[in-house]
């Protein structure tokens, strides 16, 4: 809303210029951008190469200017440079205030609240946004119910009950980058076994059993309608899960039937510290596709947890050949996505034009009805 990056990564892995006018990918570690000539901060001053350099260098990127273009290099091995650039927001400090280039300007701020004002006032649209911080989500919901807040962007699906019958508020379903999935321990499961498991677990029954038949977890494309007959290992498969998704682990066990072994529930703090499992229920990133795929690059946290290494996948990622990387993951799967998480937001019923994706980016186009 206030700050913008040079580029944005779309869900399909494509790159869209934001403050950049043109982008040239040099390698996985380097890219060149040309700054938009009309890029300006909220006080009207032009964005300079120096502003970009200062902003990106604070995100541990190396920046240098060459003949009107900006060369950006990343020293990190596991994350492509464009993803780092997409997460680095351009800003300038002026008079103790951080200026951004987005549609909103920060006009007031303390440790409990922040006031943003739309730089171009459009009648019938949101002009001012006040972000309030609460100690607990419960407290935030209480303020929403009392009419002291208009939007609660993320709400526990169980708490949706509290909004039932309140005409002042409506529920909005927002896409989330996370999904519910099952990771395979590649040290204990062969490629064929993992392929069979992936086919077995992409079933409607498991999704409904674990997450209900509501719309809090939507089926991924290509979900199988009925259970497949597949060959599974003769031994019982050990399942690990976490307290907040224990039911997912139980449902996974029931889906495996006689092949299900013990279910181990680990505290979140133990993540990455145990490997004595065959299957692990977890919440991998599902979008954008670039970040989702990068999770399985050799050496990444998730890949290390399930001891997954695939040189062909690494090569495809380096080449930015996302389809090839996806094909490689599908043929040698370290995981399977059961469903994509759908976030729940509570919004004042008068507010329209709330986008299900890019929620915050859409605030400027929100209309307020009578």
């Amino acid at each position: 809303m206030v700050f913008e990056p040079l580029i944005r990564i779309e869900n399909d892995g494509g790159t869209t210029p934001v403050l950049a006018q043109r982008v040239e990918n040099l390698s996985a570690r380097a890219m060149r951008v040309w700054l938009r000539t009309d890029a300006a901060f909220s006080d009207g001053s032009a964005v300079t190469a120096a502003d970009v350099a200062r902003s990106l260098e604070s995100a541990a990127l190396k920046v240098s200017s060459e003949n009107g273009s900006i060369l950006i290099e990343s020293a990190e091995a596991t994350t492509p440079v464009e993803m780092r650039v997409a997460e680095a927001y351009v800003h300038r400090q002026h008079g103790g205030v951080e200026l951004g280039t987005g549609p909103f300007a920060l006009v007031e701020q303390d440790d409990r609240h922040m006031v943003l004002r739309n730089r171009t006032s459009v009648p019938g649209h949101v002009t001012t946004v006040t972000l309030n911080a609460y100690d607990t989500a419960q407290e935030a919901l209480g303020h929403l119910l009392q009419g002291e807040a208009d939007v609660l962007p993320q709400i526990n699906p169980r708490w949706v009950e509290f909004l039932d019958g309140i005409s002042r508020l409506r529920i909005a379903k927002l896409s989330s980058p996370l999904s519910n999935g099952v990771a395979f321990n590649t040290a204990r499961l062969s490629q064929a076994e993992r392929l069979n498991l992936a086919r077995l677990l992409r079933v409607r029954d498991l999704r409904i059993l674990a997450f209900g038949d509501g719309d809090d977890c939507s089926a991924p494309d290509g979900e199988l309608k009925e259970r497949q007959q597949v060959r599974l290992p003769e031994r019982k498969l050990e399942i690990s899960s976490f307290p907040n998704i224990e039911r997912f682990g139980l449902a996974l066990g029931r889906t495996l039937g006689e092949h299900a072994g013990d279910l181990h529930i680990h505290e979140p703090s133990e993540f990455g510290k145990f490997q004595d499992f065959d299957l692990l229920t977890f919440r991998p990133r599902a979008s954008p596709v670039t970040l989702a795929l990068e999770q399985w690059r050799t050496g990444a946290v998730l890949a290390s947890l399930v001891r997954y290494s695939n040189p062909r996948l690494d090569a495809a990622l380096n080449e930015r050949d996302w389809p090839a990387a996806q094909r490689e993951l599908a043929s040698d799967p370290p995981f399977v996505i059961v469903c994509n998480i759908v976030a729940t937001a509570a919004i004042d019923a008068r507010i329209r034009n709330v986008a299900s994706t890019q929620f915050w980016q859409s605030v400027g186009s929100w209309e307020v009805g009578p």
Partner: protein
Amino acid sequence: MNRRRAAVTLALLVVFSGVLPITLLAAAGLQLLQRGGERASNAALDAIAAQAVARLSAYVAQQREMLRTLASAVGTEPDGARKLREASLDAPSLGRLRIVTKDSPQADLPAKLSPAQLAQALNGGEVFSPTYTVDLAPAMDACAPTGAPGKTVCATLDLLELQRQVQRIRVGREGYALAFDSTGRLIGAGEGALRASVLSGKPVAESVAAAALARGVPAPRRLHNAEDRDVLAGWAFLQEGLDWIIAIEQPADEALRGAREALIVLGLGAFATLLLSISLGYAQARKMLAGLEMEERFRTAGQLAAGITHDLGHRLAILKQIEQLAATGDPGYLPRIRESLAAEVGTIRRFVADFSDLTREAKPAEFTPVELNAFAHSIQENALAYAAETGVSVEVKSAPASTWIRGDRFLLERAVLNLTRNAIEASPRGSRVLLSVSRDEDLADLQVEDQGTGIAADRLSGLFESFNSTKRTGAHVGMGLPNVRRIVIAHGGSVSVKSTMGKGSVFTITLPAQSSSPSFS
């Protein structure tokens, strides 16, 4: 009083004597109806609260029954722990199911059960805790016996469904339900803004009443809620297994809308009936008065005709006799004929004058000040000639001070002269007629007293009615005294008579006196 005013008076009389009491009774009835409506609304809300409590109670009983069944079925099996854990997939409302023994880790022990309850559970008893809140939803710890000593199956029941049920109760358009625990903490609310108190635990307006009800103190049936509205409330207390108090509230204006609308309809009906009664009464009274007036006119015309016929007949008979005397051609009769004709002309003139008096209306706007002492002397002057003919004297007794009235001097003169002439005619030769004036506070009296034979008592009551004269020998058609009364009443006064047989009569005209001498501006 004209016919229109008489009709209005009669109609109002009907209204005040008949319709108004009925209306007042109806208003009292409507008030009772309103109170009855409130009692009925409270009773209905009580019934809904009782139904809600029964439903919630049944849900909790069902959960505990499921727990008992599971505990006895799998609690003693070797892989019971796993089966229990899997059972929570099919019965998510039972929460985390686990087998508890005396060696179980602290994390597996139900947090809200007392050590005594836990001991009771391990000895084969069924125990449960009060409700408490987990993740904003009500929950309850419960343990059911497995059948094996020292082993029990415990669960943390997820009672979110209860909250859901409470929230979904709707009464009318704005009525809702509230659920409290025995301390008065709000657990569930159908009203959206109150749900913030479910989250914060802050007491609401009804919390005190709910906590009091849990102690057996009756809860109020009408109260002021947190939104500053008057609400009617029905209450129910769920003691068996779930110490919840359910309040069903409905804004009073909505709850009593039916009764209020009935009251308005009835009130409008009563008002319309009142108007109809007045209109019908007015119309009917006018019609009736018109009939009566017509009848009265015919009767008056008849009486008048009878009197005129009688008197003119008498006059004709006399004129006939005079004609016969004249027909003799005897000059000796001429003086008698002349006297008789002069007398008859005088009589007929007075006859005509009497009728002429009847046609003159008293108009208060044209009244002028009249001083009664002077007026009495004026009457005396006018009557002296006639009195002298009959050998009667006329005297005046004045009031000590000037006595002013307002009136039509001509009409008053006609009235008093009439009484004076009657008094002279009734008086024997040598007696006197006394005109006396007096004043008492705001009233002035003018009395005409004779020393005649008096009037029989049975004639006094109808003396001022038309054609009631006993004197048919002169110009007396019986219009004199009625005309006197008409004139006096038109002046806002009254006329009365007292008579003693053998001693004479006293006619008294009473008129409103002026407080001071008038100014003749």
